[in-house]
């Protein structure tokens, strides 16, 4: 197990390295001169040239690339050319907001999705099942940012229960939760739909297994079979795949953060693109890729941990 984990981590390293290179290239082909973007259109040519030299933009590309990798290795993500703050500090200040939103959405998904999926599978083709199918189809189809707008309209504008925008004070529990409730609901909807579907089909699959028939034939009650034999096996992959859901939701959280004007990686990213803030942009993209690679790794290891049939070789 340990060996396997180490090997998976080692495989991730070259992937991350190529990711870094890709980000470097993409950011360099972006149109517009970052020095002009930082100083504004009215800046004199001398000032722009001086800033370009200071930012290292006049260096040959390979030197810029090595400097980029070198400073990343030291954990230095550079300084934002627009705001003048260190990018690492900016990212660190918003990451808790993004992770809180994502994890809460995943949690909501499990909280509602698993019971819904179970009830649908147990009463197959009943009204409950039918309702669940419509619900999960809708949940998979509605874009999270649109759901966010609808929630704002109903709960913030009409009913005035929740604040409209912002992230609140992170460490003030009440303030934090009232600000995260609607965004988490908007993001959690998709997750709930996924989990409902997965739970239902997973349970139906297991119910066809021989050992379930054996359990029936030795006279166990349906209830006992469901809880002792079916659920345990059916829920393993669903829970173990939680890391993959986190990856999907981290991508979707960008939109939710923008709709609710909530601080987070997504807002940082879009702001950086609009202002042509290269240093922030490349660091945020690298950070996203890092999160995805990390959660994929965690998922793989978690899956191996709960399912002993997977061999490590």
């Amino acid at each position, binding site marked *: 197990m340990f060996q396997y984990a180490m090997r998976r981590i080692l495989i991730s390293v*070259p*992937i*991350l390295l*190529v*990711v870094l290179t*890709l*980000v470097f290239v*993409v950011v360099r*082909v*972006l*149109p517009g001169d970052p020095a002009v973007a930082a100083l504004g259109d009215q800046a004199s040519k001398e000032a722009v040239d001086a800033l370009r030299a200071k930012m290292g933009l006049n260096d040959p590309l390979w030197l810029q690339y090595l400097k980029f990798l070198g400073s990343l290795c030291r954990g230095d993500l550079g300084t934002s050319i627009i705001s003048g703050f260190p990018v690492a500090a900016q990212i660190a200040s918003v990451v808790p907001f993004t992770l809180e939103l994502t994890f809460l959405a995943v949690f909501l998904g499990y909280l509602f999705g698993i019971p819904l999926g179970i009830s649908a599978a147990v009463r197959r*083709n009943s009204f409950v099942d039918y309702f669940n*199918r419509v619900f999960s*189809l*809708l949940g*998979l*189809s*509605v*874009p999270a*940012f*649109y759901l966010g*707008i*609808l929630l*704002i*309209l109903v709960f913030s*504008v009409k009913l005035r229960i929740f604040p409209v925008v912002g992230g609140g004070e992170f460490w003030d529990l009440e303030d934090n939760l009232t600000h995260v409730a609607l965004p988490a609901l908007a993001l959690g909807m998709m997750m709930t739909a996924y989990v409902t579907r997965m739970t*239902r*089909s997973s349970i*139906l*699959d297991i119910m066809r297994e021989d050992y379930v028939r054996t359990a029936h034939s030795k006279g166990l009650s349906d209830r006992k079979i469901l809880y002792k034999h079916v659920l345990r096996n059916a829920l393993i992959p669903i829970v173990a795949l939680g890391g993959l859901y986190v*990856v*999907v939701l*981290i*991508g*979707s959280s*960008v*939109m939710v953060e*923008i*709709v609710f004007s909530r601080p987070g990686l997504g807002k940082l*990213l*879009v702001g950086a*693109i*609009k202002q042509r803030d290269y240093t922030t*942009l490349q660091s945020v*993209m690298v950070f*996203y*890729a890092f999160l*995805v*690679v990390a959660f994929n790794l965690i998922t793989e290891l978690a899956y191996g941990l709960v399912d002993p049939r997977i061999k490590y070789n």
Partner: protein
Amino acid sequence: MWLAFLRNRTAIAGAAIAVLIFMTAIFAPWIAPYDPLDQDPIFRLEPGNQEHWLGTDDFGRDVLSRLIWGSRISLVIGFASVLIGMIAGTALGMIAGYYRGRVETLIMRGIDVVMSFPDLILAVAITAALGATLVNLVITLGIVMTPGFARMAHSALLSMREREFVLAAQSIGARDRRIIFKHIFPNIFGELLVAATLWVGVAIRLEANLAFIGLGVQPPTPTWGNMIREGVDVLINAPGISVYSGLCILVTILAFNMLGDGVRDMVDPRLRGI
């Protein structure tokens, strides 16, 4: 096979809605009551009435007409990008799966790298680099769709190439090309088609996301994503603009999801009813 599809009411409903949206897009110039770009500064943010069924936006443009024209962008981008992704991805995945060795490592590791970015982040970065025009958006989303198809074609092909009928074809001396196109491709096409149907919905959602951020086809072109964004600025006074255009996106994605589920049941009977 087709019978299974016709018996599936959800799929039929999905197909019907999709056809309806197609018709709307094709015949937009004849259906739309007004020119979608015609501004009327006197009647701004009108609520729905006899002349403008769904009201007017901040520039006094007819919301219904803009919604009708907006369907074109969503469908064109949805279909074109999935088609590009499907062709490029299938080709890459099949090349990797058939030739194995270094080619496979190179292609599949490249796919891993692209997949290390959440799809929206990737789309945002490429669009920002290329510039937001219709053609560039199709290319961008095509690139975003490619890895999924490549992985799918790759794994489907790996399971196919060990099968007896492929071995048999090889043993009677069939060429690689013939084996790939005549024997393997028809067997994995069904799976790819299901994914394509479902991913049209994904592409439409990504386009709407980009437009909402401001990286879609640029205004004043009416697209549903653009309209949601413009509507958010006047959400309190005229919530209809955002709500209606979002509803169009929702219904379109829903239609393709329903259709995709139906096609999956049709292609893969084992999953029927799940």
